């Protein structure tokens, strides 16, 4: 029989669905926006559908537009019907399970206020106390900043000034905040936002979101590296020639011209998502799967990246901007012709970087990063290119040198892992050809994976910050980007590339000068 002393809540012991978090009220600032309707609420509904939300759970939407609770719930339900992964294939049917929705909807409230209005926060406090009494949420809060970044600081300061946040110390109730991207647009602005956050919240209460970390395949990088003995001995400069990380998008700026023109590919994709991929691929094994242990190792990777001084940007970086062209047979406009983009804009829509990690494991191994818009297809992958095998043995019988092995971690679409290896072609001759062994998640697990926001929201409600970025991670990453941005200031305009191609021709030259080639994802 088990021990006699009662653990904290012994009734949770042994439950299969153990990961259901404790009581909580989720307060979404910017609750009438696109993110809430397309991502957050469908994710919350999916969690409820899977029984992953606590029964003591409520949601408050905080936004400027006048709206009743009922109107808010109706709008949210429409979003869920459209975007939930449990939506039916046949659009004529409603995919919403009424029992699940009713249980969720009874805890949904709308609170109208300006983000700068003191009274609005006062009445929010009253509403939250009432919800604590009626929904058993016990003072636990999760604030979600889904507004424009310009509102972040004001909301955080108001929450602090009006007593809606208690520091984590000496409190049984948890109070946390999720901050959406972009987290600053430079090292200085990121530091300033961190300073504002630190004025109200402890670091362990802060959850900086990077939705890439919520993707199953990104999480699987850790599983693949550290749950399989066969890869780790090869995972270093001894066996690896170089690493290529590609995040290609076929879409353009899609109505986000004003934001994007002020941001660019480096800030929008490289500083956050791609640097996270670099960290996960290159990190040392953490001592545990605890959030801090994993994040400690990721930060070490970022700190080991050799800074690119402004005068080195030509050697280690390349910028591009898309011109007219065609994608999947459809004509598309140039970047300059996009709405809300300046006619003389020099904002990059394509970027290639060569990074070196000055540490023992990766000394001398270049990491090539490539991201662009209006490329031929959507693809995100990490390719580990191994060194070529010695040619001596098969050279006499082979017309061409043996291809080096490549391990590809495909993040999207068609998530999976592929290995290119050499094998003998059946027949009398020793003819060796590369063959691809391909593991596809979709081919092995038919069930649809949870959306990234599902996982991230669940973890934030549960207080697990493993898949969120820490202050030093963000600042480290920005310090690398800042130097590049500084160097680009005096550079010639970005190289132009035709939409629907794999970037400017200069991008090919960028890697070919090292005797290597970009992969075709």
């Amino acid at each position, binding site marked *: 029989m*088990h021990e006699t002393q*009662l653990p904290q809540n012994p009734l949770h012991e042994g*439950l*299969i669905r153990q990961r259901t978090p404790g*009581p909580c009220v989720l307060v979404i600032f910017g609750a009438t926006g696109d993110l809430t309707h397309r991502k957050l609420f469908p994710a919350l509904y999916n969690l409820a559908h899977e*029984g992953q939300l606590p*029964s003591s759970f409520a949601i408050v939407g905080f936004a400027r537009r006048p709206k009743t609770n009922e109107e808010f719930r109706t709008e949210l339900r429409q979003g869920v019907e459209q975007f939930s992964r449990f939506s039916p294939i046949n659009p004529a049917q409603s995919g919403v399970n009424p029992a699940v929705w009713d*249980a969720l909807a009874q805890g949904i409230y709308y609170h109208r206020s300006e983000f700068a209005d003191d009274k609005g926060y006062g009445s929010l406090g009253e509403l939250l106390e009432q919800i604590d009494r009626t929904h*058993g949420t016990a003072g636990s809060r999760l604030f979600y900043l889904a507004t424009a970044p310009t509102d972040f600081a004001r909301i955080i300061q108001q929450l602090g000034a009006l007593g809606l946040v208690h520091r984590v110390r000496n409190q049984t109730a948890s109070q946390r905040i999720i901050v959406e991207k972009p987290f600053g647009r430079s090292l200085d602005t990121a530091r300033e936002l961190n300073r504002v956050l630190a004025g109200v919240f402890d670091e362990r209460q802060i959850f900086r979101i990077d939705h890439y970390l919520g993707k199953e395949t990104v999480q699987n990088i850790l599983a693949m590296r550290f749950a399989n003995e066969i890869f780790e001995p090869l995972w270093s400069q001894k066996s690896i020639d170089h690493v290529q990380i590609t995040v290609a998008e076929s879409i353009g700026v899609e109505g986000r011209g004003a934001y994007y023109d002020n941001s660019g590919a480096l800030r929008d994709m490289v500083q956050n998502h791609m640097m996270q991929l670099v960290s996960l691929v290159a990190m040392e094994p953490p001592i545990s799967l605890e959030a801090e242990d994993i994040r400690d190792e990721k930060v070490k990777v970022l700190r080991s990246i050799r800074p690119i001084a402004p005068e080195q940007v030509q050697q280690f970086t390349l910028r591009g901007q898309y011109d007219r062209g065609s994608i999947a047979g459809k004509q598309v406009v140039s970047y300059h012709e996009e709405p809300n983009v300046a006619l003389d804009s020099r904002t990059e829509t394509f970027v290639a970087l060569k990074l070196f990690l000055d540490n023992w494991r990766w000394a001398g191994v270049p990491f090539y990063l490539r991201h662009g818009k209006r490329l031929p297809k959507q693809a995100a992958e990490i390719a580990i290119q191994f060194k070529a095998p010695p040619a001596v043995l098969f050279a006499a019988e082979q017309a061409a040198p043996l291809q080096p092995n490549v391990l590809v971690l495909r993040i999207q679409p068609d998530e999976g892992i592929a290995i290119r290896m050499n094998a003998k072609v059946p027949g009398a001759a020793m003819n060796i050809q590369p063959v691809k062994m391909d593991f596809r998640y979709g081919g092995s697990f*038919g069930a649809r994976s949870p959306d990234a926001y599902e996982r991230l929201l669940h973890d934030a409600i549960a207080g697990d910050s493993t898949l969120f970025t820490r202050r030093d991670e963000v600042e480290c990453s920005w310090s690398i980007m800042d130097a590049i941005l500084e160097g680009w200031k005096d550079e010639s305009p970005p190289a132009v590339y035709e939409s629907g191609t794999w970037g400017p021709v200069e991008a090919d030259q960028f890697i070919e000068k090292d005797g290597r080639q970009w992969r075709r994802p």
Partner: protein
Amino acid sequence: MSNLGQLETFTAGAEIAVDVAQIERQLHVLWQLASESAKDPTQRAITRASLLNLVAYCETDAARNHATETISTLTTRHPCRAIVLLAKPYESRDELSASISALCHLAGGGRKQVCCEQISICASGEGTGRLGSAVLPLLESDLPTVIWWQGNFLARPGLFLRLATVADKLVYDMSAWEAPEVFLGAVQRLAVDQQRCSLADLSWTRLEFWRKLTAECFDNPRCRAVLDRIRSVEIAHGNGPGARLRALLYGGWLAAQLRWTPQEALAKIRLNSRDDAYATAVGLLSVELKTADATICIRKNYGDRTASVQVTMPQVCDLPRKRAFWPTDDAALLSEELDHAAPDLVRQWALAMAAALLPLLRET
């Protein structure tokens, strides 16, 4: 039938009769054909995947059909080599026959067919004695083996013990047994004795929703404080299959987790049965936990598939909280069990306590 015709039949899910000794060879031929059927090898229309061997044991045609349907659903999340055994020991014919079929579903935007294979072996009369020897060579190496036994495995000790030696997990459903309470002690001893193979009773897995809802009532620290002051527990259940057993298991679980002695548990727990046309597959209707000044009630709602929780105690005035039942069909329950390989100690403690609480059943 031509090779291509056979391939189409196979991948469409229809069964192809094969000699028991030729099962592997025939599967190899058909998968080879499937692999070569696409003109562009990079766009092969069929992918095979397997995470485990799943052996489903059945004794009736209805159970076999149920197993096939369940496995078909299950393979979207747990692709496996499925081996369905149909044993009819009481038939006079001495026979052992086999068939193979593919379980395919679309993936990757509906372009690709992801397939698993199902091997069906039917044995009757003395042929049932040879089932074990037919199954063992069919288990894929390096994969865990799970046996889903429909019926009472204690009634077929020969085959059960032979399969149990190679199994990593045995899944069964005591609610489908006749007078399951009689076997509680034997199953509990078996669970303790079996070192290699963990036991999972779907009847217990079905209780997860009620256990979770109960646990969540005590997440609030003020409520948790009353856990050790519970004076009475009233569990109402319907009269459907296994409902009484699950009420007993629920009581056993609560008592074991709260470290009650069997005597304390017998004094505090009461089971009540009543007819309920709308009872769920779990069969519990309500649970009421009382202290001197607090009542925690979990009640299945009528008219929809939800349950409500009401906590009544000083300084806590929660609204009744509603939660939707989650699926308790065999595919969903099996899927949960396949996700969790570790032995379930809480179930073992609950089972031991439930065995001690059997006198409660005489009162209902």
